[in-house]
């Protein structure tokens, strides 16, 4: 829409009248600061300040005593307890034995990262912070992979960190694949596509708590809508909530059901920006659907794809509603995410551990997302532009 007619020339806008001219003049002259300060102050007060306070909490022990509480600085003891001590099974999991092939895979990954670092160090673009950042990325990702391998083997049991990583990586992969497929289907010139678009958008608006209960209802083996099917297949005595992996898959399904629409709607909008003439001329030249997608469509939507994956990854790390409602973190701790872990610790008045778990989550999220942004997202974008 154009500018409102009366405003375009600026005559309709009232000038500051005499009555509060001192004040409004001051505000106008300092507009630069007045406009941005509220946002900055709010973030300082409710993000940065709590972040620092949380850091202190994570380094101290909190105890309720008579008539108040007692907070004592204990250094890294909380983290030590989580990583090496009595809470290790909860955060990291129980370790199994690595098989021969997994050692081989680890060696391959270490070799890959070493090569990557070496290439960066000898390329002309070497700078010290870039190198440190890459070392951190390499170490953290290798460590997380090793942890995943350790806990999925015989005798191992994943802790909240690995479970959260599973929700994030598997969830985002599923959401991206289905979201992109639906967007490709919906981008075709077919009748009723706007109806499908409208319907597909709905799950994003439903409250996660509600979805979690709806999925519990749907998967109920005796009163759910699919009960006759389960009965026919003979699944009457098993419960999906009792087996760790099926419970995790349920959480993943609920989360994906809710967030596929987000991927879908943004990718669809990106697909509509793909130059039509190029696609048409490629078709006339006899190019197949797959080649058109690979050579024309994908390069155009790649930056958007990288951005939605990044956004979803950031949000997926915070998952709590689904595990809490759908399975209550159970069986045992099998579906517990890091946020739920921190919440449970908080509920048992273990504020130090709660903050330490929160900080672990922050660290893993930050390293994963910044690495993705720097080494995948930026590359995709540069390739498109260059």
């Amino acid at each position, binding site marked *: *829409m154009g*500018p409102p007619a009366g*405003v*375009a*020339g*600026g*005559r309709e*806008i009232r000038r500051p009248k005499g009555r509060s001219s001192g004040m*409004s003049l001051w505000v*106008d002259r300092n*507009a*630069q600061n007045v*406009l*941005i300060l*509220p946002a*900055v102050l*709010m*973030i300082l007060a*409710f993000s940065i300040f*709590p972040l*620092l306070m949380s850091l202190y909490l994570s380094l*101290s022990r909190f105890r309720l005593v008579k008539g108040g509480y007692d*907070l004592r600085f204990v250094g890294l003891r909380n983290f030590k307890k989580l990583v090496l001590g009595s809470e290790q099974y909860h955060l990291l999991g129980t370790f199994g034995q690595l098989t021969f092939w997994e050692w081989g895979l680890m060696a391959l990954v270490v070799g890959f990262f070493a090569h990557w670092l070496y290439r960066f160090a000898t390329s002309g673009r070497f700078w010290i912070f870039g190198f440190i950042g890459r070392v951190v990325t390499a170490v953290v990702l290798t460590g997380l992979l090793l942890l995943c391998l350790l806990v999925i083997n015989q005798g191992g049991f994943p802790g909240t960190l690995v479970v959260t990583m599973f929700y994030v990586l598997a969830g985002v992969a599923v959401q991206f694949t289905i979201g992109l497929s639906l967007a490709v289907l*919906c981008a*075709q010139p*077919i009748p009723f596509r706007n109806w*499908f678009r*409208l*319907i*597909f958008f709905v799950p*994003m*608006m*439903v*409250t996660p*708590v*509600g979805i979690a*209960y*709806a999925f519990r*209802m*749907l998967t109920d083996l005796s*009163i*759910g809508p699919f009960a*006759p099917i389960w009965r026919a297949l003979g699944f009457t005595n098993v419960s999906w909530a009792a087996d760790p992996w099926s419970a995790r898959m349920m959480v993943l399904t609920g989360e994906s059901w809710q967030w596929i629409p987000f991927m879908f*709607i943004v990718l669809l909008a*990106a697909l509509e920006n793909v130059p039509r003439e190029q696609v*048409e001329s490629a078709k*006339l030249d006899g190019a197949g659907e797959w080649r058109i997608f690979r050579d024309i469509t994908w390069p155009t939507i790649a930056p*958007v794809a990288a951005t*939605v994956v990044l*956004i979803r990854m950031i949000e997926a*790390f*915070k998952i*709590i509603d689904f595990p809490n409602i759908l399975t209550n973190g159970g069986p045992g701790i099998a579906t517990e995410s890091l*946020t739920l872990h921190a*919440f449970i610790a*908080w509920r048992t008045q273990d504020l130090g551990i709660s*903050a330490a778990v929160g900080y672990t*989550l*922050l660290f893993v999220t*930050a390293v994963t997302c910044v690495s993705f942004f720097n080494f995948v997202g930026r590359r995709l974008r540069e390739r498109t532009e260059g």
Partner: protein
Amino acid sequence: MNGKRNGSLRRLLEPKDVNSMSPAGKMVTYGLLAFWAAVVLFPLYWVLITSLKLPIHVNDGPLYIPFIDFMPSLHAWEYIFFELGNDTLRPYLNSIVIAFFSTVLAVGIGSMAAYALVRFQYRPRFASVIAFLLILAVVVWMTIAVDLHWSLSVAIGLALFFLFLNTLGKRFQTRVGNDDILFWIISQRILPPVVAVLPIYVMFQQMRLLDTHIALIVTYMTVNLPIVVWLMRDFFASIPMDLEESAQIDGASRFQILLGIIMPLAKPGLAATSLFVLILSWNEYLLALFLSTADAQTMPLLVAAQNATRGPQWWYMSVLIVIMIVPVIVMAGILQRFIARGLLIGAVKG
């Protein structure tokens, strides 16, 4: 070749011209789309009909179609709205008030900041930013560990900071720019709420604001600010400068320009951003779990609490879920033409 024999098959598999699809392709496409539509709609349908069932209808096993399999009854709706009455309405009103005000504030304050980041150049010294953070850390430490009253330590911190600005601070020349500020604001989204919520809980406890609307409104607003700044910045960047300049020559102030010219032009962005933020606040669970217990309880908490007492009572729960979904869908229906564009602009450029 053997065109005659395969004629009908070919007609099925090959498109008429370049721009249309083959009938078989169309069939597959519609099949897949219809399948996904069923995946999306069936859970919602199930919730809706469960809300119309009597307990006996639910517990007897699945009944699918109202009027044929079972007689719909408003029993659960009556229970939720009349017997529970205030216990439902209060959280519902809480949710409306909190979602509405936090959205308005977040979009207002966030748009102001986004506009400022597009139109002005900020060049704060890097050293002052670091100093500020260090002093903030000292303030936190003094408050918690040394047990100083918080107002006293904040005063000391402010004094230290201004002292630094006017003396040592002038020696450092490295500055940060708008992009750094923007990145800083957006990166707040990476911060898991569970890290920030413990101290926020303590803060509100100290201010005696725990379990009030204000606590939730302010927290939701801050959590959603980064999204607003991110999405709105690109809308403001796409509005040409000369409109503003001519208004400025005519003597309009910055705020008159912002309210009279810029905001109306950015309406699509404002609509999409508001809807997105509204959905996030309306459905928020974790922060509400920490910061509200009874008086400020929001709908997600009420729904979640249904499990607690006598096992899940699906029929009541379904009513609550339905009344939570309906307003959002109505809002989205009104604003739907803005949504895709609004989300896309942020995602493409961000």
